[in-house]
């Protein structure tokens, strides 16, 4: 002890420091405990309610109680009553109590095919009063598999009977179904034959169609060529026509002018022609008379009809 000086600065206020450290640790631990308690609704006000179940199957302590999907409490305790029914004590967060009415029911439901079942509280009617603390809820227990099978059995049995009758009816050789099936079978045979005929017909049609298509292709090719040629011609015509029309118009005007001129110039032509005819007739008469006059008449050969000389080696 003597080695250590009580006056060492490091040891000054040591007891206070340790006390402070422990205090903080205690406060930390207490804080954690409070936090966890809050998380686990330890400090929440709870109201105890009860319900009676025929058996405890599917019920466990700590099992969640839900309302419209929200967890509002849990099973606190399971116990058997005097008549060997299970008395279940549940604690509900008080703040949710306003929705639990006297006519509310509680039932055991499975949230999924796998996993634990939960207790589902249904909200009561608007008119009903809030259930008091310690009140009993009406429990609707979940049906067991056997119960479900029994129920199903009852439901399915008539159906199965009906099916049996139907099968019997179908299997009856004299029944409508069998006869229909026979007819259908026959019909399908006929259809098969018809289909073969149709196939043959379609093949022939294909061939004919192919030939027709080939011819049509050729024809279309020719038509295309012709249309192209026509288009070209039309284009040329379109380009040249206006100029040509202008020229023709001009030419027609010129022709009109010329014909007018000719008309004007030849207005006396018929009279002139008559005169010429008269003169030629006169000339003919004169030459005729001269031809007949001696000594000219002896020199002029009278025209005569000639016979073609027949050749012996044509």
């Amino acid at each position, binding site marked *: 002890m003597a080695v250590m000086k009580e006056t060492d600065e490091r040891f000054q206020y040591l007891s206070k420091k340790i006390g402070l450290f422990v205090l903080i640790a205690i406060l930390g631990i207490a804080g954690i405990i409070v936090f966890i308690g809050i998380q686990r609704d330890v400090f929440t006000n709870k109201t105890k309610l009860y319900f009676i179940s025929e058996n405890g199957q599917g019920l466990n302590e700590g099992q969640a109680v839900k309302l419209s999907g929200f967890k509002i409490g849990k099973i606190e305790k399971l116990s058997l009553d005097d008549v060997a029914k299970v008395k279940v004590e549940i604690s509900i967060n008080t703040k949710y109590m306003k929705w639990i009415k006297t006519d509310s029911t509680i039932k055991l439901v499975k949230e999924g095919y796998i996993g634990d079942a939960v207790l589902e509280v249904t909200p009561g009617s608007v008119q009903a009063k809030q259930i008091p603390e310690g009140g009993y809820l009406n429990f609707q227990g979940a049906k067991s598999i056997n119960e479900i099978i029994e129920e199903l059995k009852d439901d399915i049995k008539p159906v199965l009977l009906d099916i049996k009758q139907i099968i019997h009816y179908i299997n009856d050789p004299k029944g409508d179904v069998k006869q229909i099936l026979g007819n259908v079978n026959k019909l399908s045979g006929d259809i098969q034959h018809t289909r073969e005929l149709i196939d043959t017909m379609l093949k022939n049609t294909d061939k004919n169609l192919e030939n027709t298509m080939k011819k049509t292709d050729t024809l279309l090719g020719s038509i295309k060529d012709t249309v192209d040629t026509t288009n070209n011609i039309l284009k040329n015509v379109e380009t040249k026509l206006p100029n040509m029309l202008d020229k023709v118009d001009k030419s027609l005007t010129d022709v009109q002018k010329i014909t007018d001129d000719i008309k004007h110039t030849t207005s006396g032509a018929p009279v002139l022609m008559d005169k010429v005819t008269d003169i030629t007739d006169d000339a003919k008469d004169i030459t005729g008379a*001269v031809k*007949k*006059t*001696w*000594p000219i*008449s*002896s020199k002029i050969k*009278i*025209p*005569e*009809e*000639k*016979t*073609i*000389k*027949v*050749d*012996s*080696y*044509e």
Partner: protein
Amino acid sequence: MNRIPFLHLILTYTRPLVLTIIFPLLFICPGCSTGPHQPSERQQIAIESNQRAENAYKKRNYIKALNHYMEALNISRSLENADSMGSNIVNIAYVYYRMGEREKSHTYADLIINKNPFEYSVRYLIDAMSIKALLYCDESNGKEASFWADKALNLCQGVSCREEGRIYNIRARASLLNKDIKAATEYAKKGLEINKKIDDVAEMGNSMRIMADIELMNKNYEASRGLYKDALLIDKSLELSDKMINDLLGIAVTFEKQGRPNEALPYYRRAISISEGMGSMEMEKSIREKIEKMQPQKNP
């Protein structure tokens, strides 16, 4: 200066001279002469049609020639001019013959022979019979051809008949068809003799060609060729293209028959050239076929 008074003198005296002497003579003298009879106006039209037909015939436009001859015939029929009718009927028959319309040619020739509707001049009868004989020659009917040629020859006897030489030629052709070479030779020689006498050069050429054909049949190729060449000279001088082709082909055949196709070829080519010039595609084609069929010459 001296010319003017001379001209003045001529002009002064010409006018009274014409008026007083020449004009009166022109009007007085027609009565003094007996000039040839002038055809009537309608007959003149028929004559003009006949002349137009002749021109068309010479140009080988046979359809046009026929139309004009028909027109002329109708006018002459309406005037019942037998001479004009006979002439036009013979012409029509001959044009049909040249066209290869044998039946129609027969029909018109028969009009003359059958005196339909009346008797025609002998010269037209001889022409009609000659045409009948030619038609039968074309039909390779030697018998009928001989018959009509003989009838024509009979008519020629006793009249001054310029057609005799021609008819002998036809008779010779008919004899050839009858395979009577001896008679054919005699008729052809007689024809040549008469044609020479009357100086019918075209028919002389025909006589020579017929004689050449006869020599060819007798396989006297050299003699045949000589006659063909003589005929060619005449035909060429008369510008008878069809006959020139016949002569040239005849010469070519004589060479060919002698196994000298190389010498035949130039004559064939000349014949083709004339055919081309005439525009005769059929003739040209037939000559080319002959060349193709020709056997190639063997080297000696």
